[in-house]
């Protein structure tokens, strides 16, 4: 599962944030475990919020949705996960399952990073 990670410096003394971009068209049952493992690898032991950029993802099924929720639950309690760039089909899955209510959702990763940057 191809993910790339890009740190956003925070305010002085603050933790900043990390933008993680999913470089894949689908997060589905065939890659859900790899996705969760890759997310853990990029976030474990870190600090600050995580902005998951899904703008290249055109399809998420319930396994992929579960893996995104699982990645969020694996974060330390003081770190939040933001979602950015939801495409139409991905947005539909989040809305129908009401999981859109448990994440901060931004139109673009740049909106979220501007909010969190120092």
């Amino acid at each position, binding site marked *: 599962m191809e993910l790339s990670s890009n740190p956003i410096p925070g305010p002085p003394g603050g933790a900043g944030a990390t933008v993680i971009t999913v470089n894949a068209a689908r997060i589905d*049952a065939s890659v859900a475990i790899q996705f969760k493992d890759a997310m853990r690898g990029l976030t474990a032991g870190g600090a600050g919020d995580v902005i998951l950029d899904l703008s290249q993802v055109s399809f998420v099924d319930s396994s992929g949705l579960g893996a995104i929720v699982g990645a969020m639950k694996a974060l330390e*309690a003081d770190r939040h996960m933001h979602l950015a760039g939801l495409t139409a089909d991905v947005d*539909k*899955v989040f809305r*129908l399952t009401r999981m859109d209510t448990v994440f901060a959702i931004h139109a673009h990763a740049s909106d979220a990073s501007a909010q969190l940057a120092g």
Partner: protein
Amino acid sequence: MTDQSDPIGFALALRANPLAVRTALADTRGWLASRRLTEAFCSTVEIAVAEALNNVVEHAYYRRREAGFSLVARPFGDILYIEIRDKGHAMPDHRLPDTPPPEPGEDRASLPEGGFGWHLIRSLADTLTYRREGEENCLILGFTISPETRLPRDG
């Protein structure tokens, strides 16, 4: 035996595994796109069919040697029917589950990471029937085709 192919229908049969599900979804979506249906309609069908096929792979064939599934898409009147068959375990009590969808809740640790599949299928399909026929599961999803789900004709 060759497929007596209905010019407006679509059929495929594959081994039941996650990569075959991807193939089936891509082929189904390609066929749907050729039917001049909106993206919103195509994605509704794709999400529901994805959950139904994942269910075949993960539950019907749980701890069984991998076997196949078939998918037939057929418009009839104003409804597009998608029929999915497999030879795996029957649904419990030969009925579709009707457990309520998982709740988002406030507490992060108790957020659901699964159990969304049937809720998505029920939310997206307009009709849903299941029956056990001998050693086979037969699930039929119906999606209503309306002027809103059709792309306008050119010119």
